[in-house]
């Protein structure tokens, strides 16, 4: 119902009341008719403890104001006890239906619903004239499911993609895989080389987020490579971080890099130091480090938010070579404009494999490409099929490719 209509309806009710005040006082409004056809079922694909109810609107629920809403009541069913004698609890309410609704639904989720026990429900129409109720004809029990069927296509996607990637990880150990050049990655050596020539430090920022983000993990992997280079060239490395867990992780990784490069003597825990968890507090402090230590190369590899441009512009003003890499789509434009090189999205995730030249990691990139290929084919095929449907050609249901990618119902 449009808001205007509702207001009109309310006005009409008021007018009627005004026209017949005596009648309204003498005969109180009749209680609204109860809802019709109350059904209940266990909600599928959940941990139980939930029942989905559905009923047809009360005939009086027509916007006239006689129904102000519905209340939902639950009681545990006991054999041989009349429904009226059960212990009823009000467990929910529902606003009146709108014009055009044929059924209303209400899901009762509560840990008080014990899985496997039978419950009865009743739904009441509430109104100024009283209430009318309907009882669920048969008891219902909630159950937990072991598999969420609505997620079948996600399971398929996980299996296909993981399968593809794992296949190529295996295969890569015996075969060579071509990887196209990525401009930003070639610049890593150049940047560290320049810092070495100038005798200035290399600054590495692994993003501002914590270890629960894959971007941070990818950034620290790249740091592992940068650490190897700075160890080899004996260039000072400066890694300010904004999360303690990242500090701990980065120390393990960089220590290992220095060990592998044969220069554990150059490693020092204080190269990787914590500043603050705060986004802008961190940016302010890193700006200070940049201006006072004048790093010749700045790496920003990880998950970034608005501080990206603060860092990159300050880095630019001191004339450092800057290489950024992130999967934060919103920050890519700033890195692109302010940095010399930027690893975009997927390139950033591929970087550690590119840099380490580890065969299995390279295989996983080939696996990603297989995923892309599947997606590309699906796109073309899908668009073709839905276009056929749109012009009125009936297709068999197994050709419905949109169902394959419809993950919105999966919850």
């Amino acid at each position, binding site marked *: 119902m449009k808001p205007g209509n*509702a207001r009109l309806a309310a006005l009409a009710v008021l007018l009627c009341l005004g026209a017949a005040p005596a009648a309204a006082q003498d005969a109180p409004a009749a209680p609204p008719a109860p809802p019709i056809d109350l059904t209940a079922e266990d909600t599928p694909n959940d941990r139980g403890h939930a029942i989905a109810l559905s009923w047809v609107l009360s005939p009086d629920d027509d916007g006239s104001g006689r129904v102000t809403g519905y209340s939902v009541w639950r009681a545990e069913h006991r054999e041989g006890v009349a429904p009226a004698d059960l212990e009823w609890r009000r467990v929910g309410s529902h*606003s*009146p239906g709108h014009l055009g609704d044929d059924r209303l639904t209400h899901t009762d989720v509560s840990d008080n619903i014990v899985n496997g026990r039978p419950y009865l429900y009743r739904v009441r129409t509430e109104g100024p004239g009283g209430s009318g109720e309907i009882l669920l004809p048969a008891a219902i029990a909630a159950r937990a499911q072991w598999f969420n069927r609505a997620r079948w296509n996600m399971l398929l996607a996980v299996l296909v993609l993981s399968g593809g990637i794992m296949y190529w990880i295996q295969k890569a150990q015996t075969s060579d895989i071509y990887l196209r050049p990525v401009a930003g990655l070639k610049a890593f050596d150049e940047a560290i080389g320049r810092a070495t020539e100038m005798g200035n430090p290399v600054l590495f920022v692994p993003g501002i987020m914590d270890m629960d983000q894959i971007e941070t993990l990818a950034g620290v992997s790249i740091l592992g490579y940068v650490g190897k280079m700075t160890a080899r060239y004996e260039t000072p490395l400066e890694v300010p971080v904004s999360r303690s867990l990242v500090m701990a992780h980065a120390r393990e990784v960089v220590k290992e890099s220095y060990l592998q490069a044969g220069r554990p003597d150059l490693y020092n825990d204080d190269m990787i130091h914590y500043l603050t968890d705060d986004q802008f507090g961190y940016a302010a402090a890193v700006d200070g480090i940049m201006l006072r230590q004048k790093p010749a190369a700045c790496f920003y590899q990880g998950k970034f938010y608005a501080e990206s441009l603060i860092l990159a512009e300050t880095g630019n003003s001191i004339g450092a070579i800057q290489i950024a890499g992130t999967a934060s789509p*919103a920050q890519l434009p700033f890195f692109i404009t302010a940095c010399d090189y930027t690893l975009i999205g997927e390139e950033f995730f591929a970087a550690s494999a590119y840099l380490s030249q580890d065969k299995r990691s390279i295989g996983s990139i080939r696996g990603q490409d297989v995923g892309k290929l599947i997606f590309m084919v699906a796109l073309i095929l899908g668009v073709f099929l839905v276009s056929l449907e749109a012009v009125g050609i009936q297709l068999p249901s197994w050709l419905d490719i949109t169902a394959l990618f419809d993950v919105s119902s999966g919850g």
Partner: protein
Amino acid sequence: MDLFEKISSLDRRWIFLVIALSILIPLLFPFTQPLEVSPDVRAVYEALAALPEGSTVLCSFEYGPSTLPEVHPMARSVMRYLFQRDHKVIVMALWPDGLFMSRDILDEIAVGEYQAEYGVDYINLGYKAGNEVVIKSIAESFSRTYPVDTRGQSTTSWPIMHGIENLANIDFIFSLSAGYPGTVEWVQYAADPYNKPMTTGCTAVQVTEVVPYVRSGQCAGILGGLAGAAEFEVLLMEKGWLTELGAGNRGMAAQSVAHLVLVAFIIIGNVAFYVERRRQRKF
């Protein structure tokens, strides 16, 4: 050094100065200009207008003082609209500072303008740490996620929460957001899995992140940045829900001038770049 070389290698501090002035001057001497309401802003309004009066709307505040100039004007307009249409408003925050933002707005609009009754017309559940986990957990139960509200009273004791067990009982979600966690998490963990209609007012930066969800219909429209706020004010005024334009439109004057100054800078820079390059070719 001739003029073009100078322009090309202009000290950035000159740019800083001009930008500061181009915002400061219109702020001191404001003016208003006509606005065209974009379809995305209209979609937000239509989604809200489709709600029957007295619906329960969940408003989540995920922004802080630094993004206040952008999001606060939207929050004000939305609240005004919701209270005029007698919706019940449940307010929460996934950002700690979001709580102060929501308090500020509720004091100004709910208490100041509409004399709405706490616990009946609206409730402020406050901030809860845990990002998207909080969303998942209100999907199961409000009272367990928020045992007490910001007044320190048991949440279930307020009339507004009667019958509101969890997300399933909410009719609409409005996310006011400036980053993570924010609109994207609300789409992913609430609107999507539970099939709830929702819309968003977010900072202009976030728009890029959110727009794919708007295009795919997972989020109904979007108010993006100060411009979105200003357009929404204009639209609400057109429809008779507001009597005067608010902070969104006031800020737009400074915004407009700053934008044009910036574009002028870019054009001058390009002209200088072009002239220089042509010269280099001659030699």
